[in-house]
């Protein structure tokens, strides 16, 4: 059983010998086994139990890392040395990493225990975890519904108590949307806040790595560990890293923006009401609210899918069957090897996006689509720059609906893309955002609320989230 509410308490209880770390890791391994039907994990590492005794001794000796004994699951797009890295794709089905991603190095250095790799949409492309070679992941609240995507397995691993914390990646909402559908915290940091070294590239100017957790405190603790510049990633930022964990108390009441474009038609009434309920409670607690406008919001999905498919088509060109990954048997010649290996190795959605990306970059269409979208990206970013001149943070819904049924959107790619209406703008602007679980709808499905802040102001996000959590403004 889990009888701690965050990592700080877990350490306390290990020190008081109320928790045995070995029992705790065994408990999670058993839970993973019992909940096999959810299909949250691609690979489980039962040998991690061997680390438990060693780390428990370290804790008892008083010399231990910040994440000592925290049991963590990793989305199967991040490299862990000598472990499989498949991106839930047939094209990488036998691939084994030869090095650790920077985030993994940092977790191991702080004595975390890595329990396995989680299921996701193939190459992180999808909003429902229905595009995985390992099959669908099920929502723990209703097994006929999706967990969200692309980091579906990671969201479920935390929601169903299969680990303490998990890692996902977010290119257009792939942490926040599954966090909303599964009722957990999910943080997408500022672009460049966390090194991408060892993350399989999807859209390089959008991809961010972040945690799923059951509390703001654990989210802040994780960010403190993984943030920072890295010589292996030239796009990682040298912006100073705050001690987020010990800086969770607000020292002034923040001004909160409500963008009118995010509360129009298409937003489920129950979600809208739950968010306005929190807004009312925050007003009663002295927070100031301002209506703001993000006028280019209606162009975000189009801009996002032009730019990310373009970047993906270039990034995925490396899978050619020559140096690693799947190669067909007895290719007739080199070109045949490329074409057949790629066509058999990639799944449907990945091929669709490579086709779209190649089209928007092709001669004659480059200016009309790609360059145009880059210009609109500037306008979308400017909207946020303007908004943050008058507010500290922005509150929005995370998703237009709660978790939808498996199969509901699978035959309509455009409809599936439109699910990302509240999340993609954040990646276009490179700002941070967090999903907070704020309640349940009438079908007992989790509802998520999103808080956004300006670039590198994760401290404000986490302080807001902590205030809401600590003062029990949540309705569940």
């Amino acid at each position, binding site marked *: 059983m889990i009888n701690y509410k965050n990592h700080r308490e877990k350490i306390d209880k290990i020190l008081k010998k109320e928790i045995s770390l070995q029992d705790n890791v065994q408990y999670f391994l058993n839970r993973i086994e019992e909940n096999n039907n959810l299909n949250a994990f691609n690979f489980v590492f039962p040998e991690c139990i061997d680390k438990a005794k060693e780390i428990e001794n370290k804790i008892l000796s008083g010399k231990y890392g910040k994440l000592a004994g925290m049991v963590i699951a990793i989305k199967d797009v991040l490299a862990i040395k000598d472990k499989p890295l498949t991106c839930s794709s047939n094209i990488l089905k036998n691939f084994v990493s030869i090095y650790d991603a920077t985030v993994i190095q940092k977790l191991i250095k702080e004595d975390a225990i890595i329990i396995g790799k989680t299921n996701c949409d193939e190459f992180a492309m999808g909003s429902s975890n229905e595009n995985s070679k390992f099959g669908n992941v099920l929502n723990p609240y209703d097994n006929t519904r999706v967990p969200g995507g692309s980091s579906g397995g990671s969201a479920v691993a935390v929601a169903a108590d299969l680990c303490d914390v998990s890692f996902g990646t977010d290119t257009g909402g792939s942490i926040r949307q599954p966090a909303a559908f599964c009722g957990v915290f999910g943080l997408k940091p500022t672009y460049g806040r966390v090194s991408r070294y060892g993350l399989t590239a999807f859209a390089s100017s959008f991809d961010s790595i972040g945690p799923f957790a059951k509390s703001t405190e654990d989210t802040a603790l994780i960010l403190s560990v993984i943030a920072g510049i890295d010589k292996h990633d030239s796009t990682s930022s040298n912006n100073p890293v705050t001690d987020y964990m010990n800086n969770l108390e607000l020292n002034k009441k923040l001004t909160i923006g409500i963008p009118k474009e995010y509360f129009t038609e298409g937003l489920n009434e129950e979600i809208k009401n739950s968010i306005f309920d929190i807004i009312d409670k925050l007003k009663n607690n002295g927070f100031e609210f301002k209506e703001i406008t993000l006028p280019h919001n209606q162009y975000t999905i189009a801009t996002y899918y032009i730019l990310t498919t373009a970047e993906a088509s270039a990034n995925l060109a490396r899978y050619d069957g020559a140096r690693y990954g799947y190669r067909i048997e007895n290719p007739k010649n080199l070109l045949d090897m490329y074409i057949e290996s790629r066509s058999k190795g990639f799944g449907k959605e990945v091929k669709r996006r490579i*086709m779209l990306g190649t089209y928007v970059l092709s001669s004659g269409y480059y200016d009309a689509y790609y360059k145009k979208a880059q210009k609109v990206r500037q306008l979308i970013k400017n909207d946020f720059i303007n908004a943050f001149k008058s507010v500290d943070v922005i509150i929005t819904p995370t998703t237009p609906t709660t978790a939808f049924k498996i199969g509901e959107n699978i035959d309509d790619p455009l409809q599936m893309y439109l699910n990302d209406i509240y999340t993609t703008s954040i990646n276009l602007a490179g700002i941070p955002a967090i999903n907070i679980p704020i309640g349940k709808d009438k079908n007992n499905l989790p509802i998520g609320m999103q808080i956004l802040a300006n670039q590198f102001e994760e401290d404000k996000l986490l302080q807001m989230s902590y205030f809401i959590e600590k003062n029990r403004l949540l309705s569940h």
Partner: protein
Amino acid sequence: MSVTIKDVEYIAKLARLKFEEDEKEKLCKEMNQILEYMAKLNELDTENIEPLSHPIELNNVFREDEIKQSVSTEEALKNAPDKDAQFFRVPKIINVE
């Protein structure tokens, strides 16, 4: 601007992908539907807007060109679909008549 089956075949060739006839028709329909939605951007006047290629302000990152230990041949070949002791093996590139 609407995508034809011929365009799908041309783009597939560029992307080193291959599709069955029924897949081509479906892709053609889907790409048209998605690109029509993307054409929404033409409503905006972006004449004097600079294209944004990266969301955060970045400067070029330079470093000394120092020799450091890198991946060994053995490690680099670990995931190769076909190899000999030192090299990746691929189908013959030069055609001999």
